[in-house]
Every structure is written in structure tokens, then in C-alpha cells.
């Protein structure tokens, strides 16, 4: 999510915070049965309570993702039980597991196919950085090289509780977004439909090795190779 310190607008967390009305007017209106709120508050409240994830499993983490939909952890309590098989109907892409170089183009394509506003959770060490398989020749060192990631869940694999926590973190971020006006910080409205170039897998490596729009290699330190990954 965006950095709160850079945010130009105040957070609209509660009903009364969201609209500039003096108290007398507000209480008079409430007596008449009128509640005044901002569009942002209502809109964010509604969509943060029904984040539909894509039913998309990659590796071991997918099993823990399924577990979090099971009866013990029950992701339905947070409004996200509707796992959609089609990216066209999903709001949230949970990248659950190792993204190999053969699979990375499909993941980016699936992200492109999702409608705005869309969010990405990188679940597990592999999706974040390659994890235990980072040294392998066929493993992408983090999906954030190609698509913007909103929440990272560390762990190998993360527990279902961590999945629930990441969802709550995401919901907090969604409630902080401003849709309309000058202070809009919702990329879906600022940038329009985000589509990123799909890398091509040549059988050896991905081309390009990362998307400079989304990810830049860390500053060069001594003994670090060109592509920024030790």
C-alpha cells in the first residue's frame, strides 16, 4: 500500500471524519434520518468487505491458502470466501508459491486480465524473493519484478492466520484509498487499467529480466552482479 506519511489527505476511517460538516448541522440531519458520508468512505467500506480472490494456486502455499478457506480459519468472516476461477471476476491475486520462469508470463497475463481495482498479495518466501529455491536456475526471484505487490506474507509456507492477517492489512489499505478529486491515490483511477508487458520465456531466461516500471535493482554494492541479485 502507499506510504501513509506521503498521503496528502487524511484517512477516512469513520463516518464522521469523512465529511466536513459542523456538529449542529450533522445532529439536525441525523434527527431527520439523514446520514451524511463521503462517496469514498462508502465505496471503500463496501469493496474492502468483499475482496474476491482468484482461485489460483502455484505450489505448497496454495494448500495453506485453501486451508484458510476451510472451516477452522474461515476467510469468509472477512468477506473473501468467493474464490473465483476466472481472473475477470477477481479483485485479488494471491501469488501462492514458487513462480518459475516458465510460469511468470502466465502470472503477469492473469494480472493483466483482472479488472481494476486489483490487488496482489505475494504469499510465501518464494513469491517474495525465490525463497529456498532462489539459487535455482529456473526460479524467478520475486514476483514484484513484474507486477506491483501490495502485501507480502513471509513464511514457508505462511500459516493460514498469516493469510488472514494479510487480508486485513490489505483491507486497511483499501479503506485508506481516495477515489475522486485531487488527492486521489487509487492507482485504478489515477493510472487507468494497469497492464504490464508480459515477459517472454526463451527457454533460458525471461526477457526482460524485470519490469523497470515496477521494480528497480537495488543500488549497486561491491561484489554484486549486474542484475542486482546476489
Amino acid at each position: 500500500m502507499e506510504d501513509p506519511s506521503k498521503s496528502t489527505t487524511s484517512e477516512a476511517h469513520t463516518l464522521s471524519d469523512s465529511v466536513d460538516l459542523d456538529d449542529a448541522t450533522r445532529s439536525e440531519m441525523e434527527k431527520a434520518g439523514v446520514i451524511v458520508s463521503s462517496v469514498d468512505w462508502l465505496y471503500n467500506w463496501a469493496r474492502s468487505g468483499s475482496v474476491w480472490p482468484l482461485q489460483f494456486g502455484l505450489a505448497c502455499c496454495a494448500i495453506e491458502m485453501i486451508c484458510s478457506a476451510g472451516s477452522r480459519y474461515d476467510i469468509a468472516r472477512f468477506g473473501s470466501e468467493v474464490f473465483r476461477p476466472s481472473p475477470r471476476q477477481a479483485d485479488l491475486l494471491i501469488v501462492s508459491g514458487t513462480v518459475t520462469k516458465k510460469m511468470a508470463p502466465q502470472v503477469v497475463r492473469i494480472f493483466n486480465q483482472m479488472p481494476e481495482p486489483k490487488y496482489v498479495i505475494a504469499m510465501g518466501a518464494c513469491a517474495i524473493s525465490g525463497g529456498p529455491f532462489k539459487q535455482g536456475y529456473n526460479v524467478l526471484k520475486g514476483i514484484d519484478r513484474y507486477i506491483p505487490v501490495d502485501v507480502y506474507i513471509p513464511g514457508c509456507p505462511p500459516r493460514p492466520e498469516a493469510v488472514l492477517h494479510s487480508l486485513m492489512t490489505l483491507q486497511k489499505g483499501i479503506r485508506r484509498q481516495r477515489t475522486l478529486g485531487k488527492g486521489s491515490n487509487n492507482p485504478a483511477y489515477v493510472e487507468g487499467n494497469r497492464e504490464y508487458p508480459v515477459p517472454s520465456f526463451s527457454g533460458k531466461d525471461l526477457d526482460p529480466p524485470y519490469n523497470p516500471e515496477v521494480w528497480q535493482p537495488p543500488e549497486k554494492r561491491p561484489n554484486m552482479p549486474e542484475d542486482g541479485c546476489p
Partner: protein
Amino acid sequence: MTMESSVVAGSEPTVEPRGFELIEREGLETNLLEVSMGPHHPSTHGVFRMDVKLDGETVTELRPVFGYLHRNHEKLAEDMGYLGSMPFTDRLDYFCSMTNNWAYALAGEKMIDLEVPERAEYVRVIMAELTRLVNHIMLVGFFVNDLGALGTPLLYALREREKILDLFEWASGARMMCNYMRFGGLRNDLPEGWLTKCREVVDAFPYFLDEYEKLLVENEIILVRTQNVGVLKPELAINAGITGPMLRASGVNYDLRKVDAYGVYDRFPFRVPMGEVGDCYDRFMVRILEMRESIKILRQAMDELPEGPIMGEAPRVFKPPAGEIYGRIEGPKGELGFYLVSDGTAKPYRYRVRPPSLVNLTVLEDLCLGHKVADAVVILGSVDIVLGEVDR
């Protein structure tokens, strides 16, 4: 193209669907439809892709495409010490980390002729049979899910799985990636009170199975969708190297727990369930019956569990003499083997996994030809694959 000529030459359907007759339509030209199912598809059990050619809805050609989860397991293992690969074996077949550990530990122990204490052997049997319960119950859940019973049976399965995962977590510290076994024994002993809790879980399991069987086994939709679908003949199964419940569903009596009697399996009397027809229904039923036998083994093992050390006299630095070894066990999916070649150093020269999922998958086309595309999903579900093991 007529119906007859659309069947691709050289791959005659080995399975004739019973109850349906291919209708000869003379003069009607139809085109084959190529469909790519996967790697993202709700029914493909991970990132598996099937390129199918369809005549109407009938599968005339099926080409499996894998490698979407190739994580260089073998190459990585050749770059590190022997024990360093133990946590990586957890991630092969991520439902059954305990049996993966055991197969690898067995191969390592064979290399240096290491004795495993009796208590450790018993605990390994307990863990392996609990893993078998987890694997089979999840398989049945996903299988019925593929048949169209979305959600409910899988939720029942997940509920039971959580109870067993709690036991794993208590003993090893992790729910899925247990990393519990070592060359020569176990990493740590069972915690206090673990056995009592395990007994409770095992004693409650048959009641759950009764309930589950009542719901599923005689369900008419399941019978219609699975009987005589994807028949695997015993000859083909043996020739293709199929192992595990899939082989036994075809009526071949081959269980490594009986054949090899590794560990202390020769001390437990148990039966090997077998199918007759070799169709999806048999594969489904063999798993349910195997769970009943697993409970029997678990009860005996818990009753006879001896006291004593849990770790043999393993060397501090694992440096086997030059040579090669193949260690195998009966994993929940079939024969899981590790083939290790040593050149006398502390790293394996060659490290090879014999994955049951991959070998069982090789007959997929033979099973699916002539069936409808919806049945291909069911057949894939009954094969029981995990992509972490297929692609490694």
C-alpha cells in the same frame, strides 16, 4: 472429418467407454477443437497443463505439459551436503512431507549401513500412516470437488486434516514442512502427551470415515461419473511402472510395505485393498479402504511403541563411501525412491528422485482417450498428482 477418422492414428483408444456408442455420421464434416487446459485451471491440481484435442466433447488426443513448477530440486541438492536436502524433500510432495523425509533418510541410512533405533522406527511408522490419512483424505476431497460437489466434501476433509496437522506441528514444529527425520533416527522425541492426543485423533477417525462413506460411496452421481471411467488394465499398469493405490486399484497386489517390509512394517498385520476393474471408482475406493488399514497399523504401532533412544549412532559429518544406492518406500501416492550416487565427498554426485506422481501420470492419455472432456478432469483427479513432485 468423420468420427472414425478423427481418432488420431497411432493412438487408438485403449479404453472403450461402456454404455456409450460412437455414432457413425457419414458425410458430416467436423473439426477437431484444441483446448489448452491449464496451467491456471480450477481443476488441474496445480500448474499442470493438458493440451486436449476434442471431437465434440470426446477426447481424441491428450498431451500433458509440465515444468511450470520445476524448482531445480535435484540440482540444488547436488550443491549442498546430504542433510541439507532434508528440508527440500518436504517441498516435493507437500501433502506428505513425513514420508518424503523417510524415503530420503532411508536412502542415506542404506549408504552408510546405519542402524535406526526401534523407537524411531515405530515413530516413523506412526508419522507415515498419519501422512497417508492426510493425503488420502485430501485426495478424496479434491476428487469429489472435481466431480462437481464444490466445497462441502473438501471442507470435511480439511477439518480432519487440521487435526492431524496439529499433531505434526506439536511433534516437529511445522504444519506442513515437518523436516522431522534425520539419517539414523528423528530430530526430536515425541513431546509429552502427544501419544494420548494422537490416540484420540485416530480413534475418532473411523467415525468420520463412516460418515464420509455414507455420503459418498453409494452416491448415485459418483457411481455414474466414476464407474467404468478411465479403466486402467493391469498389464498396462505394470508396463508403465504405475505404483501405489493406482496399481492396486487395477488388481495388482503390490505394496512395498509388504514386498520390502522396510522399517518395522513386517510386525504389523494389515491387509492390502485391491480393486477389480481399475476405473476411477476403484481408485477412489482403494484409498478409502487404505485409510481403514492405516488406522489399524496406527493403533498397533501406538500400543507397541517402545521406550529408548530416537537417534542412532550417526556420524557428525555425513560422508558416505563412493557408490550408489536406491532407497524406496511406499509413499501415499506410490513408490517414492531416492537414487543417490556418491563420489566419496560430503555432497551427492547425483541425486535423483523417483516421483510416483510423475510416473503415474504417464498413462493419463491412455485413460482419457474416448472419454468426455469432463471425465478427463475426473481421471486426473483420481490419479492423485502433486505438481511439486511431478516437476520437482
